[in-house]
């Protein structure tokens, strides 16, 4: 089909909505975590203030070109991931630039940001950053493995690689969701999801008590603000993929917000009540539990 | 355990000084420096004083001596004995004493502190010459009696004007007890 230029402003609109929702959702999840600690927690608009403050810092230093490009890569990873999956199913405005075979592209984008971050933080030359990168790459790889397996199993199940078609196949009653038609794959993917969200028990990459605070150690003012923006977009984009693949997508913004919030909450709840694994322990955990489930799901399909 | 009995048993073996029974479960004994190591080993292995509580020094400036106190504790008998070793105190430069870090590894820490704070050297003790607490110290060891901390502080740090410091004795005498005889300072 011919490329429709109108899609570009529309997808930018999607981006705008998602960014704001990401900021608010992040603060809200933090408030929920604070509730567990009998606190009130930060105000919901705190993230905006931090962003403005960080962009408003007057001085900033550099460690080289890759140090600049690191947050940029990360941000483009998040944005790209978001732009190439349909946010709202069936809506012309918010189906973004998705085309056939975009599932592989999405998988690539999930990893893209981490790699860019690794390169950038490596340039900063801080030992804590270096240790954090080695931990992060190994753990993210282990966490992506079950997700990839689950994605393949879903792709086999629906005989397509287009997210749009997969979502379309899940419409109708919620019994058509992959959650019920292929529970094994969903279990594997959700367990892997924990690992990729950088929350306990899999946040040893950023563990403040051990390597403060991992890869972003040297990042400050504007760089940090870029990464915060990405921290708002990237989880949402990832959740959008999960939602489309496993939870029947969303056909209007209301259900979109609701589903994203619930999926996000899943990782937050686990995060509040668990300490963190050591990196080799977490990798072992991923290889023992989710990966076999993922393989099993492929076999079942 | 009765500490005077222990003292008599030890006196048969080593030339000990007088015994000061501070409490029924705490006594101090003076002994010459060369007999310190055998006494410590005897106390640790035969008498069950296995716990080195502390090792510290007292600066008797007037007598020109350092007093090293090795305080040992016997947990099963619930009593402590402190060994006082008097070593002579050079007016400037390091005093010397032999190290006991091979008997109690943790003594190395105490000896590092004594080396820095009193200027007592323990040759052979691990990391003895590294800086322990102070950094870039350029005066006589601060715990010696002839080091005046107030003078040093006023000389090296600029004070904030407006702070009054009075001698409490005279101040409280004027304020509270105008009728008492003046409090003496040494």
């Amino acid at each position, binding site marked *: 089909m011919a490329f429709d230029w109108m899609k570009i402003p529309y997808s930018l609109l999607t981006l705008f909505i998602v960014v704001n929702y990401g900021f608010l959702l992040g603060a809200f999840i933090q408030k929920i975590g*604070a509730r567990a*600690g*009998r*606190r*009130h*927690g*930060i*105000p919901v608009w*705190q993230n905006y*203030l*931090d962003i*403005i*403050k960080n962009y*408003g*810092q*007057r*001085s*900033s*230093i550099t460690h080289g070109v890759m140090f600049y490009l690191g947050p940029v890569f990360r941000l483009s990873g998040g944005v790209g991931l978001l732009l190439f999956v349909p946010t709202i199913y069936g809506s012309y405005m918010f189906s973004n630039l998705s085309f056939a075979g975009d599932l592989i592209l999405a998988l690539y984008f999930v990893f893209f940001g981490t790699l860019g971050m690794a390169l950038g933080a490596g340039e900063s030359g801080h030992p804590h950053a270096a240790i954090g990168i080695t931990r992060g790459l190994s753990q993210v790889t282990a966490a992506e493995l079950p997700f990839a397996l689950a994605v393949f199993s879903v792709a086999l199940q629906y005989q397509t690689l287009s997210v749009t078609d997969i979502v379309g196949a899940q419409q109708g009653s919620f019994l058509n969701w992959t959650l019920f038609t292929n529970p094994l794959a969903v279990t594997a993917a959700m367990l892997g999801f924990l690992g990729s969200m950088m929350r306990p028990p899999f946040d040893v990459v950023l563990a*403040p008590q051990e390597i*403060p*605070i991992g890869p*972003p*150690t*040297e*990042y*400050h*003012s504007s760089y*940090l603000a870029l990464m915060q923006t990405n921290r708002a977009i990237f989880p949402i984009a990832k959740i959008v993929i999960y939602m489309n693949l496993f939870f029947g997508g969303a056909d209007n913004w209301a259900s979109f917000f609701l589903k994203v919030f619930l999926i996000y909450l899943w990782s937050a709840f686990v995060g509040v009540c668990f300490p963190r694994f050591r990196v080799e322990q977490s990798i072992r955990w991923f290889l023992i539990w989710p990966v076999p489930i993922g393989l099993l799901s492929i076999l079942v399909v | 355990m009765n500490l005077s009995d222990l003292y008599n048993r030890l006196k048969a073996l080593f030339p000990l000084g007088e015994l000061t029974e501070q409490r029924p479960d705490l006594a101090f004994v003076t002994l010459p420096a060369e007999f310190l190591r055998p006494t410590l080993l005897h106390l640790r292995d035969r008498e069950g004083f296995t716990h080195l509580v502390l090792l510290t020094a007292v600066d008797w400036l007037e007598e020109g001596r350092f007093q090293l106190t090795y305080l040992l504790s016997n947990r099963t008998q619930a009593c402590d004995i402190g060994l006082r070793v008097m070593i002579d105190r050079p007016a400037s430069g390091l005093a010397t004493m032999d190290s006991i870090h091979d008997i109690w590894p943790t003594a190395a820490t105490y000896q590092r502190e004594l080396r820095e704070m009193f200027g007592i050297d323990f040759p052979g003790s691990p990391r003895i010459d590294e800086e322990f*607490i*102070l*950094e*870039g*110290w*350029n*005066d006589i060891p*601060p715990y010696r009696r002839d*080091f005046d*901390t*107030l003078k*040093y*502080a006023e000389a*090296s*740090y*600029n*004070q*904030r004007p*407006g*702070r009054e*410091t009075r001698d409490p004795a005279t101040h409280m005498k004027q304020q509270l007890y105008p009728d008492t005889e003046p409090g003496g300072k040494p």
Partner: protein
Amino acid sequence: MSMKPELMKRMVKGPDGVEFEVEPLRDYYCEAPPTVMPAAYSKIVEDLFNWARAESLWILGFGTGCGAIEMRPLMTPRFDAYRYGIQWRPTPRQANLLVISGYLSVKTLKRAIRAYEQMQSPKYVVGLGSCTINGGMYWDSYNTIKRLDDYLPVDLYITGCMPRPEALLAGFTDLKKLIKAGKGEGANQYAENFAWYKANQKQVIHDWDMPDYNW
């Protein structure tokens, strides 16, 4: 001045067998003195920035003295400082408020200076407790500095030994007022009187084995 061996200029043979020269003081730090950072051109933008800076204070998690013990109650349920946009940052790069929590021994002063210089401007310093003002309890101690503002540009002092969390919250509220009024220019003040501050610092830090300014 005693130079630590790992700071000396030397030839290093890497794992790949290539010989190269490292001079840590030159390689790892930049020695350019700080410059005065101008405010944003338009006043509205600067006011917006100041408002955001005031409302998101990121404290550097560096407990330099006794006062640090009241920091945990400050961050926990009873006095929940997160409500006011106050958070901990573990690394000086991302913090913009350095809380000197209590007396500073000379050894800690050295680390505090380096932590302060690694923070990004605008940055603020809050002195906690009487001992940062005039020595307090330790007025005659040979190892603690007596007035903090000779060595770092202090924006605010919080008195007490030690200050209660309520006092800390009140102090931070006042600091926010200062910043919103555009008075929180400690970094520029440090840059303007750089020579004076350095002279004071080197007067008490006898083994100065670091660059004059590390970022």
